[in-house]
Structure formats: structure tokens, C-alpha cells
């Protein structure tokens, strides 16, 4: 049957659609990533671990002068902390300063090999250069002030029509001094950075690759890797999407088919629930269900860190209880049609029971609706998960695109787009690819489409 499907005309038409094939490849990459994450390629700790200074920009963005100072200052202060502790340990009789140095690590990036004494000169050189850099900046500030004062004075005198040649010369002198400071500062920066590199060398080989991937999209406001969070969120998104769509489609199909097939009070009851639930805006309904799971007793049970698998259950339940409505309505309509077809009567005439006919003869005939609804709900659930999480109602304690967006929101006002951007792009690409593929599938397999 699968071979037949692959060889079918629709499949050939689908495979000629390059955009669709590319989107399918994208979805497969996402899917494989989700599975890899599930198997532990990116753990939850990886997404929380500090890999560098706060709000480190990603690979494309050059680091400006102001940020360079801030980042170098962060590295210097971190290293100073470590080396001060190591120095205390060194001073203590029988202390092991190397152990203190070993404690410090930014993911794969650890302090260079060698004893405390070996590393001490580099640290001293770094500290010295840093202090000198501070002096240079202090000097620069002074000169700036001076130049500013002179300019003011020149303006005043010019207004009174007096001679300003002396002051002009003085200003030029100050500006020359200032210009001299810039290359000095640059040299000191390089000295500091070279020593940081010496103390905390970039890991080489595979570890280096992993580290550069981690910092590729920058870091968030706590110095954790944005790339790791975005990738881990793929797993959360697929989990929520898959479980929710499966649960919703099953509930919807069974209730819709039963309502249509049995009629009578079953139909009335199902329709009553469906129309009641669909009269409430679905985000509000979702929020209500999620809130219900935040009752202290339930929240304690589901948010227990010992059972991380349960953490998403409230979300599954809320989505599953909300999303089945559309499926139910569609399937009910289809079954109302199917149950009048003669093969259903023929099955009854062969002596099959009503439940058996419903399960084995009617529901398999709604399979196309189940597939369509599954793909729609899958994407719908991912989008809703992000929205709810952004509002603070969804995923908790795990990375999710929604959490990234809500955390990154205040960064945006400081021109730091990497966190929001990464989450948005990851989600956008997935949703777009899914929509393109489902459109292309529909076009390819629609018999009315020539």
C-alpha cells in the first residue's frame, strides 16, 4: 500500500514541487532534531548553563566599543574572582589551587592546563593591562572634559568678538593627545584579550565546534546559550504538537462519529458540549483550563521537578480538551453522510454489532479527515503553546520559544534581538514549511485538480 502511494500520480506531482520538497526536508530536519533532543543531544541543563557574558550577540553582529569594554570587563572580573580564590587556596598550607581553577568552566570552555604558578603571569599581565586600560580611559575622560571646556570658552569669546587663536592651539593639542590614546587603548585591549584567551583557551576539536555552535546565536540575559534553548524548544513544540493533535483528533473523531452514528441523546449531548465550548473564544478557554491546573494541589503534583515528564500534562490536557471541537464537527458531518451509505446497512445485514460497525467500517472511512485535522492541529498547538507561554500560562521551567520571546522582550528595547529573533525564526520556519507541505499535498492529491 505504501509502495502504491509512493508510485501514485499525486506523489509524483508532489515530488515535482521543489518548494514543497524543500519544506519537507526542513520538517524532517526539525523532526530529527526533536528526536535527537529527546535522546539527550541537548539536555535541559545545557540550556541553563552559562556559556559567556550576558547578552552576547550572535555570529553576524560586530561587537561595538562599548560592548567590548563590558564583555572584557566581565571576563576579567570572572577570572579575577577565580584567581583570587586560587591565591587564597595557594596561600593555605596544603591547598590545591588547581582544583579551584578546575571548578570554573563555561560549558566546554575551561581554564588552560598547567599549574597555578604557570598561569599566574598571564593573569597578572591581564590584570595589569586592564588597570592600565582603566587609566587610559580615565585620562581620556579628563581630556574629553578639557576639550569640551575649551570649546565652550571658544564659543563664548567668539560671541564677544575676541581673539581665540591661543585657545584653538590648545584645543588642537588636547585633540592630538586624545588621538594618541585610541591606539594605546586598542593595544591594551588586545593584550587583555590575548591573556584571556591564554587563560581560557577556546576549546579545540569537537568540543570547540560544540562551543562555537552554542554561542552562535548569542546568550540571553543570564549568559545561557540561545541556540541551545531554541533547539531544545523544538522538542517541546513537537511534544506539545504531537500529543495534543493526537488526543484532540482521537476525542474529536470518536465523539463526532458516535454522535452522528447513534443519534438521539448521544448526538444531543455531544452537540451541546461542542456548541457550548465553541461559543467561548478558544484562547480564553485554554487559559481557563491551564489556570485550573494551577490549583495548588494539582500544580504541586504536575510541577514536581522529580517528574519532569508530567510538567507538560496540564498543557496537553488544556489543548486536548479544546482542540477536538473542530474535528468533532467535521467528522460528525462526514459520518452523517457515511452512515446512510449502503455498505453500512450491508454490514448490519451481515450481522455486525453497532460498535463494531462504527469502529471498523465508519471511522476508517474518515481517515482523510483525521490526517488533515492532525496536521492543522499540530501547527495550531505549537502556535498556541508559544502564545500561552508568552503570556506566562504555558510551559514552565523548560525552555520554549514562548519563554524566550517573553524573556527577550526587554532586550529588544536595548537593541538586542537575538533571543526574540531566534525563537521567532525557528517557529516561523517550522510553521511555514508545514503550511507549504500541506498545501502542496492537497494540490497534488486533489482529484479535481488537473
Amino acid at each position, binding site marked *: 500500500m505504501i509502495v502504491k502511494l509512493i508510485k501514485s500520480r499525486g506523489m509524483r506531482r508532489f515530488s515535482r514541487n521543489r518548494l514543497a520538497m524543500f519544506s519537507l526536508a526542513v520538517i524532517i530536519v526539525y523532526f530529527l532534531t526533536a528526536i535527537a533532543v529527546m535522546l539527550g543531544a541537548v539536555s535541559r541543563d545545557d540550556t541553563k548553563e552559562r556559556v559567556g557574558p550576558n547578552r552576547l550577540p550572535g555570529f553576524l553582529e560586530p561587537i561595538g566599543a562599548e560592548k567590548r569594554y563590558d564583555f572584557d570587563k566581565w571576563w576579567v572580573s570572572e577570572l579575577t574572582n577565580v584567581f583570587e580564590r586560587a591565591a587564597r587556596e595557594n596561600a593555605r598550607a596544603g591547598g590545591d589551587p588547581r582544583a579551584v581553577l578546575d571548578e570554573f568552566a563555561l560549558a566546554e570552555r575551561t581554564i588552560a592546563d598547567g599549574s597555578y604558578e604557570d598561569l599566574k603571569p598571564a593573569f597578572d599581565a591581564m590584570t595589569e593591562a586592564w588597570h592600565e586600560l582603566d587609566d587610559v580611559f580615565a585620562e581620556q575622560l579628563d581630556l574629553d572634559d578639557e576639550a569640551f571646556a575649551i570649546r565652550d570658552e571658544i564659543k563664548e569669546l567668539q560671541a564677544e568678538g575676541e581673539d581665540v587663536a591661543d585657545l584653538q592651539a590648545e584645543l588642537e593639542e588636547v585633540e592630538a593627545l586624545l588621538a594618541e590614546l585610541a591606539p594605546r587603548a586598542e593595544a591594551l585591549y588586545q593584550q587583555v584579550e590575548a591573556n584571556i584567551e591564554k587563560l581560557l583557551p577556546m576549546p579545540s576539536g569537537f568540543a570547540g565546534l560544540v562551543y562555537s555552535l552554542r554561542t552562535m546565536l548569542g546568550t540571553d540575559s543570564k549568559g545561557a546559550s540561545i541556540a541551545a534553548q531554541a533547539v531544545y524548544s523544538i522538542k517541546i513544540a513537537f511534544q506539545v504538537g504531537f500529543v495534543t493533535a493526537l488526543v484532540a483528533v482521537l476525542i474529536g473523531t470518536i465523539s463526532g462519529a458516535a454522535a452522528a452514528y447513534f*443519534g*438521539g441523546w448521544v448526538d444531543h449531548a455531544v452537540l451541546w458540549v461542542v456548541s457550548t465550548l465553541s461559543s467561548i473564544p478558544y484562547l480564553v478557554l485554554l487559559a481557563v483550563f491551564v489556570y485550573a491546573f494551577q490549583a495548588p494541589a494539582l500544580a504541586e503534583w504536575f510541577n514536581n521537578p522529580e517528574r519532569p515528564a508530567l510538567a507538560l500534562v496540564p498543557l496537553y490536557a488544556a489543548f486536548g480538551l479544546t482542540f477536538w471541537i473542530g474535528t468533532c464537527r467535521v467528522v460528525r458531518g462526514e459520518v452523517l453522510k457515511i452512515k446512510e*451509505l*449502503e*455498505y453500512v*446497512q*450491508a*454490514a*448490519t*445485514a*451481515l*450481522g*455486525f*454489532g*453497532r460498535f463494531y460497525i462504527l469502529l*471498523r*467500517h465508519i471511522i*476508517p*472511512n474518515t*481517515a482523510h479527515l483525521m490526517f488533515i485535522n492532525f496536521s492543522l492541529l499540530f501547527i495550531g498547538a505549537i502556535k498556541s503553546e508559544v502564545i500561552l507561554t508568552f503570556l506566562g500560562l504555558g510551559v514552565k521551567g523548560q525552555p520554549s520559544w514562548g519563554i524566550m520571546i517573553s524573556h527577550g522582550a526587554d532586550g529588544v528595547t536595548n537593541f538586542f534581538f537575538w533571543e526574540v529573533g531566534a525563537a521567532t525564526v525557528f517557529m516561523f520556519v517550522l510553521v511555514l514549511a508545514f503550511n507549504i507541505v500541506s498545501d502542496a499535498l492537497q494540490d497534488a492529491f486533489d482529484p479535481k485538480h488537473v
Partner: protein
Amino acid sequence: MTNAPDAKPVLQVRHLTTSFRTDDGIVTAVDDVSFDVFAGETLGVVGESGCGKTVTSKSIMRLLPEHLTIYGEQSEVIFEGKNIIRANEREMRKIRGDKIAMIFQEPMTSLNPVFTVGWQLDEALKYHTNLSRKQRREKAIEMLRLVEIPNPERRIHEYPHQLSGGMRQRVMIAMALCCEPDILIADEPTTALDVTIQAQILDLMNGLKEKLHTAIMLITHDLGVVAQVCDRVMVMYAGRAIEFGSVREIFHEPQHPYTNALLESIPKRGSRRSRSRRLPTIPGIVPSLRNLPKGCRFNDRCPACQQRCIDEEPELINHSLDRPVRCHFPLNQKTQTESAH
């Protein structure tokens, strides 16, 4: 009754009255119909659209929506000594398919499109027999061969859409007969087929009846079909059985004016009348079940209608031997004396 090949009826229907609850009140679709089906015979049920043929057959199978259907208090459908009109769903399930099978009019939709022919045959066998998987497969192939489907070993792996209409009807017959039922109810089995296929299917059913000794209740509006395969005929009009008789009697000596009018309206090749005159039709339409005429239900269309027909509804009476007819003034009365001797 005459011409019955076997004197023992397998199915006795007595005073079957089937009514439906509708928005306009209760409508009686089948009114006080009684007949027998004997083993190994073919009973034809003939009548215009809406006269209650299908409702009669579905009442026997109890396929009508239970919550909307009311069966008359005196209604009895006696099968194997039991009144199955009052049987519960579980008992019915054992009878359906196993003892009484049914095939439907529309072969295009009577097979489930998502399963293979073999799967559907196997399902029926699994439900009613204790055969092993291999035996069931063999039986399925055997049944397909019996209904003259070429290459059954390959056909069992095919889906209904890969088969033609006639082929599907053969599969339906195979499914209906695979558990060797005592009675096969065929509800217009050939209406949707073209004429050559129709003849093949009818021949096939005739052959199978003799081979398997199954009684057939054939519902049709096509008198040609009746002439070809039936032993006895019941004519229905507006929910009533109006005439019984053997095929020969019905075709040659119709007693009820309605039967006569039906036969008149068949074009006859080579007859003088057909060349010189318009084909006769029955004027008017079948009366609405909600608004039946008083007296005989055929009175407003009957050419021989008299005052008595309007005042009083006729009973089903044996005017001649074993030929019950529901008419005050039956035609071809002369046969009474002839057959009495």
C-alpha cells in the same frame, strides 16, 4: 400454496404492519402484510416506488431505525419458530448474515471502499463461523469462484473501486451467501446494472438457489426480472399486499386491476396494439401514505371503480383457489371455476 417447491415455509410473515414516527405524525408504510417464503423458491415482491417493498424487507431484517419505527401489535415474522420482530438486538445479530442475508440495490456503495474484497469476505466469515484463517481464505476464494469472478486469488486483494459494478454485485452476493443463509433477501439487486450484466446476475442467483437450496425474496419493480427468475409473486400497492400467485398466473390471469394495468403498460414486441395505440399507462400517482383514500386504495386510479370500492376497503380474499386478491371485483374470474375442477 400452489407451485411451492417445498411445502414447508422457512419464513412466515403475518399481519406485518410497520409505521414510522414522523414530524407529521405516524405514517404506516406497510399495512397488514402476510406471506410465506418456502425453502428453495424465489418469491418476487413487485410494486411501484414507495409501495412498501423495501420497508417490508427491512422490517424482516430489522434494519429500520429502531427509535422511529413502530411494528403493529399483531405483527409476526416467524423464523425457526420464533417471532423475530420482537427479538432483541443480540438475537437479531445472530440471524442477520448467518440465517437471513440481504443484498442491496447500489453495488457502487455497498462495499466499504477502504478495505479489500478479501478482507470484507473474511470479516463476515470470521463473525459467523469458527474457521481458521487459512480455511476462511479458501472459503472466500471458493465463494468468489462460485459467483463466477475470474481469477479470485488475485481479486481478493483488490479494493472495491478496482471492480466493475457487476463484479461488485457478485462480491455482494458472495458475501451474503458465504455463511449459507436460509433466506436471501435481494432488494432490487439488478436495478443499477446494465441489461447484459443484469441477465448474468439473475442467472447466477437462479443457479445458486438450486445449488445452495436457499430461498430468495426478490424485490423489484421490473416485471421482466420477475418473469425470468421468480416462482411466486406478491404484488404490493400503497403498503398493502394486493395479489398473490404463481408467475404464470400473475402474468396470464391477473385478477387485480392494478396488476393488470401494470402488465398492460409493458411494451409488447409485435403485438398489434403496440403498433396502433399509445402505450397504456396508469393514470394518477400512488396515493400519499399520509392521506390514503377511503375504501380501496386503488380506487382513484382504477378503471373499474364502483361505489362499493369507494365505501369499503376490500379484504384479501381467495376468489379462486389459493390466489388471494384484495379486490371487490377481480378480473379473470373464469379461472375460479377452471382451477376448481
